[in-house]
């Protein structure tokens, strides 16, 4: 298995669903697909190429949209599938059917970016506290933390 063979296979099987495919360093491949084709790409990667290990899912706030990166790995290389979703309607399909280990990362995405994951088996918050104010998503670029004013019970002496 080598990088070029993987890229050729991607172009062969996914054809025009491949929006971009890059190989910036040895053993690193980035494949870009539209969000409608995400499940198909993950399925292809798992079934045909044997990438069963999902390392993590990263989210990046690009301003107008969110970029979601699914980092897969096998015993040869790290294969990243990336997709972009609009910021005003952040919807993403769940890949837990294919990769059950993705659940914690998807719950983290929901908490941190306010992305709605469709068909997620367990949509409860994972990291943020139960009394976290609604509509605050810490890893969005426009979210700034302001320390609440300190209140000393009983007042200052």
């Amino acid at each position, binding site marked *: 298995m080598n990088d070029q063979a993987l890229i050729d296979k991607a172009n062969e099987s996914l054809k025009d669903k491949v929006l971009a495919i890059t190989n*910036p*360093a040895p*053993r*690193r491949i*980035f494949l870009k697909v539209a969000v409608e084709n995400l499940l198909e790409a993950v399925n292809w990667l798992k079934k045909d190429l044997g990438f*069963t*290990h*999902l*390392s*993590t899912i*990263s*989210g*990046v*706030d690009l301003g107008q949209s969110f970029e979601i*990166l699914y*980092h897969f*790995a*096998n*015993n*040869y*290389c*790290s294969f*990243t599938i990336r997709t972009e979703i609009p910021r005003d309607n952040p919807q993403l399909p769940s890949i837990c059917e294919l*990769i*059950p*280990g*993705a*659940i*914690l*990362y998807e719950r983290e995405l929901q908490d941190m970016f306010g992305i709605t994951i469709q068909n997620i088996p367990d949509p409860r*918050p*994972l*990291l*943020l*506290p139960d009394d976290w104010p609604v509509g605050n998503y*810490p*890893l969005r670029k426009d979210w700034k*933390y302001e320390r609440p004013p300190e209140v000393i019970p009983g007042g200052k002496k």
Partner: protein
Amino acid sequence: MRFQIPIGPQHPALKEPIGLRITVEGEIIRDADIRLGYNHRGIEKLAEQKTWIQNIYLTERICGICSHSHTTCYVQGVEKLMELQPPKRGLYIRTLVAELERVHSHLLWLGVAGHEAGFDSFFMYTWRDREIVMDILERISGNRVHYGINTIGGVRRDLDELQVKYILDSLEILRKRSEYYKNLGTTEPSFVARLAGVGYLSKEDAIALCAVGPTLRASGVPMDVRKDDPYAVYDEVPFEVCTADTCDVLGRAVVRIKELFQSYNIIEYLLKNLPAGEIAVKAPRRAKPNEVVSRYEAPRGENIHYIKSNGTDKPERLKVRAPTLANYAATIKMLKNGFIADVPLIFAAIDPCICCAERAVAIVDARTGQEKVVPMNILKQISQKISANKERKREAEWPL
């Protein structure tokens, strides 16, 4: 009847805050649920406001045991972004510290496993010998926990002849002691009986749930980032990936003991083949807009950082996934259908005191199958109400 036992987040027996909710039926665990976030410090957000150099020290503080894992993972990613090639000697020293860290982490784990299995002398022995590694690390870096040895483009401290000799001498003691633990830990019948068959995780489940590190390797999957995706100097160092096929806590202990010996060999190889030369190159302040996926085999498994730069002296995004998070999904699987007494062993680092946890009870109505959660005092009242109207058997005999 099912009981739900909440353990944590703040609990006298837990070393770290984590919320565990375990549903038991008698002694058997039927379901387990994990609630995270009690220790969430917003490091990914903070990293976006700090410079490349400042972030080395920030990532070092993600973890207190595998601090070197996070800095190495971060630093080798940033080096790719800045198109730097660190000198050979620097990479050798970086790898040396990484392997010493693996040794001290595995010795610590062995001790904790011994303690949870009720074999406290094993715990004290391994932790005494862990001090030898800590002393070596202190000699090399000046610190016992946060070594602060990595910098962008190499390492910050060089090794001299005396230090090399000291490490090699200490290594001899460690080898001898580990040999003893290997015999003791794998032949002592009560210890083996306590670990064998506990926390079963089949190979298929381990792969499906994306487990990493010794947990995955103990289920018979030979996956090790050092071999699969060699970073630093692992492509020149001879070593083997250690696996076990028993899929239980015993297998995880065997994998870690085997890895100890591999680490000793790697350390010896690195010290005997240490190249001469510079230890670091100068790094620029800014990085061109780019992105990189950096992987590292920490003592607990695969550690991955995704770093994106935007041309300034600060990262656009730093995503960190520590190995423990990847293993939680598998841990829940391991806990299910196990015994409640095995929770500490399976959760190894957690030592929960179950009887003093506050409790709520879920009653399953046998006829309707409906569940409801009631506190203990209500349950007592129900039982009193039921038993109050019952005819008492005065002449009841003990059925034996």
